[in-house]
């Protein structure tokens, strides 16, 4: 039984690309849980980390929009602007992608 499980499931996790794809899917749940239960700045830190870790993590923008849909009200200080999280993450996404192209990690 254990052997068949190993043969059936493990290659999916051990293949380099699939492993990252699984992590990517897990990251969606982590972000969703963070948006619903954690302080907003923690979600922002997570988004930053995922943007660095995953390639072209544009899903972050969708999660920011979701956060705006759930929580946003017009911000008096920004003349009634609503899409605060979306704008921050949108800029952050392109900034980090830009930085990643100009950085190399030799670990």
């Amino acid at each position: 039984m254990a052997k068949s499980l190993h043969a059936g499931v493990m290659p999916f996790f051990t293949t380099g690309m699939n492993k990252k794809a699984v992590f990517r899917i897990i990251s969606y749940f982590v972000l969703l849980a963070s948006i619903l239960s954690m302080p907003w700045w923690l979600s922002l830190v997570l988004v930053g980390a995922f943007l660095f870790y995953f390639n072209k993590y544009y899903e972050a923008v969708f999660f920011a929009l979701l956060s705006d849909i759930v929580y946003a009200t017009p911000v008096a200080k920004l003349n009634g602007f609503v899409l605060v999280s979306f704008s921050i993450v949108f800029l952050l996404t392109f900034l980090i992608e830009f930085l990643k192209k100009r950085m190399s990690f030799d670990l």
Partner: protein
Amino acid sequence: MTYLRDNEKRKKRNRVFLLLIAVAFLFYYQHKIISFFSDKTALVAKPALESVSVLKEKASNGILSVFLSKSSLVAQNNGLKNELDESRAKLLDYSRLFAENSELKTLLGRNEQDKTLLASVISKPNQSPYDTIIVDVGEKNSVFAGAQVLAYGDIIIGKISEVSNDTSKATLFSSPGEEYEGMVLGKNISLKLLGRGGGNFISEFPRGVLIEQGDQVYSVGLLPHLLGTVQNISSDPRDPFQTVLVRGPINMAELRFVEIIL
């Protein structure tokens, strides 16, 4: 080769152009889009936020009880008992004054009472960068945009800014940039409070106006509600104005229930 490279460039340019158009569209219709989807997501978000709120409360209670020793619990218990006795004594006086106030208003034909609706807080201000709370009552409970929100019965904290069928979003008066009219109790000094976030307000006054630390600030109206107390007054001899910091009396992170004035 050059043709292929040009083709790639054109494709990239088109993608950027489309993206910019999508973002511009999103920004232009931001209020409509947010309120439309807010209505739809409330159905899913409400049970999720409610369960998260219950889980967080249970977890924090469980973790705290593990780390509290018996002696610290006894000390805390004694402290709370003393505080309770003190509050009871103050409440006796408050009840007498309240009855007297009601009688006077009845005599003058203005005995109006707030009709309030109890609501449970399902999302607290630290969960979003907007300084908002989400409550579990909405349009079907007759909640409307602009309704004022009270905490612990008499402390005014904000107003309802968006209502969906099952939930409502309330913006706190202390949100950055929000302005609210208040009055210093007993001195009849009217002041414009500017929200600074985290339950704090600031206000500016000419230096001649006598305001002291500990003065209570109430909302304006026939039924005034407590907004906060003066925490700090700072002034510069070169400046004809003094800056007053007013702090709300409650910790928003511990808020579980609110009342909405209907």
